[in-house]
């Protein structure tokens, strides 16, 4: 039923295809990339070439093929976004479920911690963490997840609070199942479908955050390409070589839109709104 509703949403379906193509391109980057993304050849002869058949995205200030760099950049951007989302969702779900299931003082203390965490201006927290720990891909994933999990935790807790009163959970408790089993086998699966929606949105948020940090020179550092640092690399030569910033940023925008649309489609499919009502 939900699957059919999702498939009926053309935008969401196309977005899913776009994501599929991007993921595939990222996985196959070494095969697809026409040139070396990092190595530098005859700089003077190859640099600042505008888009052409040989270099569809042009070349950068070191004469590297931007299409190849963008493909390898997709690997970094997508993997950071997806892995950080998975980590944040896992931590957040477990935390929220435990907090919601036990309630009382446990819930009170756990949620006050989340309150402080959420009150922290997120980007400042990221800047702070990036400043404290030298950013590498794994560290960056950890930092993004650390910043994002409390939102998921709070959300899941709300879901669990309502699920907790359902009959099937009551039955599980009456049968004497241990708490961890009820949480993992009965509560979390019940809350999974809204998590799908927040998860899809979170991927967009994470990819955007990584790109923002890399753009500021605080995330993935060159020569390793990430869409964020590729846009940054072109910002000083914008007037003469617009393509250096344009293409990675455009890919980034397309990716973020695709994930948002998929999240939208999932939300509509899982929680259909009232039928259309024409007005005025």
């Amino acid at each position: 039923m939900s699957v059919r509703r999702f498939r009926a949403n053309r935008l969401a379906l196309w977005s899913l295809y776009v994501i599929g193509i991007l993921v595939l391109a990222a996985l196959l980057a070494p095969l697809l990339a026409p040139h070396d993304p990092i190595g530098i050849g005859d700089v003077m002869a190859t640099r600042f070439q505008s888009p052409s058949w040989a270099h569809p995205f042009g070349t950068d200030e070191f004469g590297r093929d931007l299409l190849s760099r963008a493909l390898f950049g997709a690997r970094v951007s997508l993997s950071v976004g997806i892995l950080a989302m998975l980590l944040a969702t896992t931590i957040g779900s477990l935390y929220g479920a435990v907090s919601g299931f036990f309630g009382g003082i446990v819930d009170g203390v756990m949620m006050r911690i989340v309150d402080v965490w959420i009150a922290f201006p997120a980007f400042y927290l990221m800047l702070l963490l990036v400043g404290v720990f030298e950013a590498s891909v794994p560290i960056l994933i950890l930092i993004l997840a650390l910043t994002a999990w409390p939102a998921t935790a709070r959300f899941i807790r709300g879901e669990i609070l309502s699920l907790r009163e359902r009959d099937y959970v009551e039955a599980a408790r009456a049968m004497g199942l241990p708490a961890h089993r009820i949480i993992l086998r009965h509560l979390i699966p019940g809350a999974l479908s809204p998590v799908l929606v927040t998860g899809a949105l979170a991927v967009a948020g994470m990819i955007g955050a990584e790109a923002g940090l890399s753009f500021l020179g605080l995330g993935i550092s060159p020569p390793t390409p990430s869409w964020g640092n590729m846009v940054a690399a072109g910002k000083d030569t914008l007037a003469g070589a617009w393509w250096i910033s344009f293409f990675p940023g455009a890919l980034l925008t397309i990716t973020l839109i695709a994930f948002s649309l998929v999240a939208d489609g999932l939300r509509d499919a899982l929680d259909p709104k009232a039928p259309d009502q024409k007005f005025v």
Partner: protein
Amino acid sequence: MLAYIVRRLLLAVPLILGIVTATFFLVHLAPGDPVDLYLQPQRQVDPAVIERVRQERGLDQPLHIQYVNWLSASARGDFGESFLLRRPVRDVLAETVPYTLLLILAALLVDALLGISLGVVSAVKRGTKLDRVVTLGSLVLYAMPGFWLALMLILLFSVGLGWFPTSQATSLDYADLSAFGKVLDRLWHLVLPVTVLGVGGAAATARYMRSRLLDVLGEEYITAARARGFRGWTIIRRHALKNAMIPIITIYGMSLPLMLGGATIVETIFAWPGMGRLTVDAVVGRDYPVILATTMVAAVLTVLGSLLADVGYAAVDPRVSYERSRP
């Protein structure tokens, strides 16, 4: 009402204290000694000098003593001296924070005016081509990363058309301008940064406004108003809009941390002399006193923002009782 505000303010204190404490200990988790960073340009430093600097900055004391000292000094408004700028952090903040506030307030204004009107148009014309264009357009703008939008706007409006300046908050000849010229000059420099910062929020507001208004339009009192003979826009203006706008206040309170984050990037791109750019420079240069201070300012602004939103919400919506502290 007053008691409610006071209670919320009292609740905000431990929240800010928690954030500030977490920040302090996170910064001191950092591998490496801040003194090394402080003296970095001159590599071979006499150990006696290192020791003196360490004593001057109180870094030779145990961490919890440092924490107490720092906290009591901060509470008195003394944030220490910037490692990079070699000036009191308080003075640096006094120069930069107003610029960030100006940027954010202007962006919130754009967000509100553009977002609410687009949302209303889109809801009223639901299902038409206009609605689809607005909905899709706001999605694209919402998803677009600010730094890329900023560069594309610079490419189009500064490099290409030459309409707006690429950077700074004022022109070089600002001091020689007349009073009116100064205002114009400031507005002229605000256009692009505020657009970048405000347009994403406006897109979110428009989407939210649209769905809220559609919800409200489905309510019975609207049908009742229609039955009484009111028509189209009158119903929207007199009956629906006010109720649909109430939750927007909450969105606003929550959008402040996003705005602060966005401002760091916008300020960096447009060389805007605000707190965000200061923070980025401080993070790059490991300027701990500045990082601690700007994080504290950002935290206070965030907490105040959500406080204002809650108070505003309670003031507008008669169903909210001041007696309950938590839903």
